[in-house]
């Protein structure tokens, strides 16, 4: 017969591997969040699962789910405050309980997301969070103060200005495996430096000049396999389109996955002019305004430049939206789509 006391004891001692096996079956995100609150053992396992879920988006490409705002929302916001003619960059650390201890993304051990805060939101009365004033450059000391995990491998910087992006990225460029940069709102230059370990690079809402700067030195990106490039405006000159392909040619050998926002016809003409062979690309994803493109036919047409191509995915978007900056394609990812109402939760 069942012995209640025995059973109670038994249930307190579920082996860790079984807790993990049970929790890994859970697919509903909010339930996983609640599991973090059950006890420390469940929290530990759930955090690993959440991290795995989030990072899987780096290698499992899908326009509809891939470009969403990260489910692990960042605890760090950056915004700029003006006093007379002087601008001050402020780092808002949220939630307040994290101040001075953990300033990185809540779950992962090697992931950091930094999202630029909208100027229009800074006077929000709910924005009563601790703030840290940044110095003109982030040096090692600031790096330590930020308590960024030393084993940082995945960095996401969205909607930040030149100052923060240029300061933070080079600090970690050698150790990063993935980097997402989006909504750069400046005309500075950002070099990736010697990013020898970088395998996944997502650059969204970037202009051609910045893109050139980023990919300037192909030797610095020897392992790059996943490249997603969404230009801030497609209404660029023909000459600039050449520059884009020229940049791509520098990393063409190592790439296995490529995503572009470009008109298919333009892309094919550029490929014809440039003898660039993407020898290892097996997956190509294109966002364009031309409707009803037959993917299989396109794949056949592209085989001379993509000899290992296995899959082509075309996302058709209306012409008007295609030409817009802050493209709806990135719906929910950055900028105006970010909902400051989240702050009310604090």
């Amino acid at each position, binding site marked *: *017969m*069942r012995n209640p006391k025995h*059973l*109670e004891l*038994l*249930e*307190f001692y*579920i*082996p860790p*591997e*079984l807790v*993990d*096996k*049970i*929790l*890994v*079956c*859970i697919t*509903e*995100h*909010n*339930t996983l*969040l*609640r*599991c*973090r*609150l*059950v*006890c*420390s*053992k*469940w*929290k530990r396992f759930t955090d690993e*699962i*959440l991290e*795995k879920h989030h990072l899987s988006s780096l290698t499992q490409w899908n326009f509809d789910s891939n470009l969403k705002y990260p*489910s*692990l*929302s*960042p*605890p760090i916001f950056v915004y700029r405050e003006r006093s007379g003619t002087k601008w001050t960059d402020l780092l808002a650390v*949220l*939630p*307040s*309980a*994290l101040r001075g201890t953990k300033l990185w993304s*809540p*779950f992962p051990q090697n992931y950091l997301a930094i999202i630029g805060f909208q100027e229009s939101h800074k006077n929000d009365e709910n924005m009563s969070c601790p703030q840290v004033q940044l110095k003109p450059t982030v040096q090692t000391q600031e790096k330590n103060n930020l308590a960024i995990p030393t084993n940082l491998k995945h960095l996401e910087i969205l909607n930040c200005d030149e100052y923060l992006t240029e300061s933070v990225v080079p600090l970690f460029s050698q150790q990063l495996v993935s980097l997402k940069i989006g909504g750069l709102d400046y005309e500075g230059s950002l070099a990736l430096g010697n990013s020898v370990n970088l395998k996944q690079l997502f650059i969204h809402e970037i202009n051609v000049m910045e893109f050139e700067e980023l990919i300037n030195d192909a030797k610095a990106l020897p392992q790059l396999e996943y490249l997603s490039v969404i230009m801030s405006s497609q209404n660029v000159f023909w000459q600039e389109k050449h520059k884009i392909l020229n940049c791509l040619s520098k990393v063409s050998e190592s790439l296995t996955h490529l995503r572009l926002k470009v008109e298919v016809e333009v892309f094919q003409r550029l490929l014809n002019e440039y003898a660039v062979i993407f020898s290892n690309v097996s997956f190509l994803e294109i966002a364009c305004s031309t409707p009803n493109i037959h993917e299989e036919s396109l794949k056949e047409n592209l085989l001379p430049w993509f000899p290992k191509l296995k899959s082509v995915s075309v996302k058709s978007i209306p012409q008007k939206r295609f030409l817009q900056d802050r493209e709806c394609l990135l719906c929910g990812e950055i900028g105006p789509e970010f909902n400051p109402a*989240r702050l009310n*939760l*604090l």
Partner: protein
Amino acid sequence: MALVRVISSDGAAFLVSQRLAKRSGKLKTEIETFRKSSDNSEAQPEIRIVTIRAEILRLVLQWLQQHQNDPVLPANQNEQDGRGDAEMGQSQWDRDFLAPMDLGIVMELILAANHLEVKGLLDITCKLVESKITGRTVDEIRTAFKLKSDFKGNEEEQTRLENRWCVEN
């Protein structure tokens, strides 16, 4: 037909065919060890499972009996994504089998399936437990699993604050 006697922690003996018993990784190992160490090839192995009581052992054997013709799943199958074969492998019989069980029994069954290395049973029971967690509040989960919060200091509050940034609407 070669038989094996499997004895539960509370002394109940189950006589089952060795073919059936060998669908459990643990029992298979025990039977093979017995064969190697025994001089008499006709001797009937006797395996005592000290961690599984009769009621649970009977359920495991019943499940094995029902699934005796299924392909044996390797223990590490689907390890990459951490998911088992529960969704694709669960039959109506499995659903009827599990339906009357309360969570305590299911948890014991999970432990037994893990100990006896019966992957198919482990997968479907874990999936069942998952369905009992999904949608529940933290307190309901703690009550159901007889767990207590062991967070120190303000760790629980901090976790709640973190969660607020990650909730999907």
